[in-house]
């Protein structure tokens, strides 16, 4: 129904480039999540899609029509703002009815549409209240209701849950997931800082960094086969460990000697003859490291700090130089008295990522 197509979109404020050459195809019915570090332009991109910011260069198509110069109200989009942006002087009913009144719908039509949306969102008892007499979660739902009544083709969410407390965030996240399920043909674009929201809601995640798109893919693609070091470290918590090293054997599988005499590890990623001796970074997720007795094909280091969380044990290894990020291992279950021990840790070769010049060996040449 309503796909979006972003073709080499640029955005700059005066001399400051914020986004450059954004290309993205969004299919109808997808739930796309934008993630990225603060200030990378997630909101700006979303607001350009909404029509609240001018597009400096490139074209934006919704449903096959170029909408660069179409006013927001006629783009068939609706937006939930981070601060909800409810009209404080209007009741919940009027808040939801505002757009319909502007569209000159009849009283009956408006009433039906608003009551239906209120029903879905369990807001019926609050229709006569002003926003200030609602809890954060209820305001949030009114903001969503205001979008639903307009029956837009595309829903835009800018960090909609960031003002809620942790418990409510989980509940509302589930409600949004259900909402999406009940409207399978509506497209949603969702900006968030929260990895869990991104991983659980998204059909595809767009990682934005450095004025552009770093990688687009399903949550598990991003987790299992990150294209570059940035995505590798951005997705997952604690972040992926990066070890500096040198390729010592090439072929179907690659062996890398870790710097600082921490041993040699093997990766399932293929490499070419010419890679021999190349400086690379090896990435292994903390949860992929496991204890082993075999000093071959493993990482060897001394435990600096141990954190027992019950279900998992976190081990922090002494960094080679003071101030460097410590290597972290996340072992399932309880392990006692490992502090100060020198351990061998290994990872399955498929879980050992190799990045040359920041790019994964898997994606070379693509």
């Amino acid at each position, binding site marked *: 129904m309503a796909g979006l197509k972003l073709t080499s979109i640029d955005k700059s404020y005066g001399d400051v480039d914020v986004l450059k050459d954004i290309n993205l195809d969004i299919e109808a019915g997808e739930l796309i999540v934008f993630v990225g570090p603060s200030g990378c332009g997630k909101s700006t991109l979303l607001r350009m899609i909404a029509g*609240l910011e001018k597009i400096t260069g490139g074209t934006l198509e919704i449903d096959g029509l170029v909408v660069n110069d179409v006013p927001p109200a006629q783009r068939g989009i609706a*937006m939930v703002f*981070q601060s909800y*942006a409810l009209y404080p002087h*209007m009741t919940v009913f009027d808040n939801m009815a*505002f757009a319909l009144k502007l569209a000159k719908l009849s009283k009956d039509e408006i009433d039906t549409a608003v009551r239906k949306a209120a029903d879905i969102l369990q807001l019926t008892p609050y229709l006569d209240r002003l926003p200030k007499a609602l809890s954060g979660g209820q305001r949030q739902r009114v903001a969503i209701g205001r979008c639903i009544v307009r029956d837009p083709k595309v829903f835009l969410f800018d960090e909609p849950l960031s003002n809620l407390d942790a418990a409510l965030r989980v509940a509302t996240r589930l409600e949004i997931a259900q909402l999406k399920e009940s409207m399978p043909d509506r497209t949603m674009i969702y900006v968030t800082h929260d990895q869990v929201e991104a991983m659980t809601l998204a059909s595809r995640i767009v990682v934005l960094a450095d004025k552009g798109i770093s990688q687009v893919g399903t949550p598990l693609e991003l987790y299992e086969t990150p294209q570059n070091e940035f995505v590798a470290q951005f997705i997952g918590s604690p972040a992926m460990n990066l070890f500096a090293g040198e390729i010592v054997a090439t072929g179907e599988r690659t062996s890398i000697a870790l710097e600082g005499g921490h041993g040699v590890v093997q990766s399932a990623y293929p490499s070419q003859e010419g890679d021999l001796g190349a400086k690379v970074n090896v990435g292994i997720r903390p949860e992929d490291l496991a204890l082993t007795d075999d000093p071959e094909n493993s990482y060897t280091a001394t435990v600096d700090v141990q954190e027992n969380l019950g279900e998992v044990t976190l081990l922090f290894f002494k960094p080679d130089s003071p101030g460097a990020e410590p290597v972290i291992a996340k072992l399932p279950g309880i392990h006692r008295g490992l502090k100060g021990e020198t351990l061998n840790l290994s990872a399955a070769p498929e879980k050992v990522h190799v990045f040359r010049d920041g790019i994964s060996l898997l994606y070379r040449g693509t």
Partner: protein
Amino acid sequence: MHPALQGLITIVIGVGGCVGYFYFSNFLLDRFLLPARAFTAAETAARRRLGLIFLFALPTLLILALYLSGTGLSGIASGWGLFWLLVVLALIFGLWRLTGFVFATGETTAGHNISHANMIRPWLFLLPAILALGLYLTYPVFETLRLSLIHRNGGVGIGNYTFMFGEQKFWEAMRNNMLWLVVVPAMSTAFGLIVAQLTDRLSWGNIAKMLVFMPMAISMVGASVIWKLVYESRPAEVEQIGVLNALWVGMGGEPQQWLTLPVWNNFFLMVVLIWIQTGFAMVILSAALRGIPEETVEAAIVDGAGPFQIFFKIKVPQIMSTIVVVWTTITLVVLKVFDIVFTMTNGQWGTQVLANYMYDKMFRANDWGTGSAAAMVIMLLVTPILVWNVRNARKEMR
């Protein structure tokens, strides 16, 4: 002595007195009355005795001495003497009741002393203001009420009021005041709102705002002089020096004495006050407009609202309480309007207003009773609006 020097000395004494008062009263409170430390039961008892002597005996002696040295013994016997004696007794009674609060019985903790000192402190700061306001505001109100009930020929009663209500000039003033009341606040607020909205997004908006605000800095008399020149009229053969007549003649009209045109002249006077008050309305409303969350405006854009709908359905309702405060504040100014009418027409040609009517009666006709009665009427009109305004302003702050 040179007047400037006298002024300087007055300022030094006044400011120094204030600072000294606040410093020493707080010093007394924190050092001697309620120091921030604990007391044993014996200590509190001793302090209580001492305190009683201070709070009770000392003021009594002081006031009595002052009183006697002023009027002599015979003074006590008169009506006023008894009145003041009662005031002094009430004061001493009040102080006596306070000793229980200041000097508790039994042991006290440091926390108790600090919290009690902090309950007294606001009153230390309020006291000078209360006394000054009582002297300069409350007393005149009652005195005016009294004067308004005394007739010129010595009779007591509502004669002044009935006389005033029977006067045609009074009703003219009343009617004009109502006219002012409707037109000036509405126009000032409307213009202020429009200017605030229009200048918000302009690069030279701040200069425009400054120009609109400037009349606020001119006194009403100064403004009247300026506008009197605008309305100035010269015989037809001579060149017009008044802007309005210059325009009018330029368009082919006969030169007019604008300020003597019945009914219209009221509006020409109102223009002056609107000119002054628009700046005030603009500044307050501009601040309020900026306080509107940008996202609600963006949400309205996404919802499909045009510029006018955004202004009237999103922005104006959100600053409604500020608009009301601005409106009522200007209403208060309008009810008291005097200077403009006094300087420009002095109430002739059907432009009388209440304040000028009062002035006329009091200082020109030397009819204190009727003048005071007019003052009471003005006060009665102002009070409800004032109360409402204060309420709204408070709501605004919350």
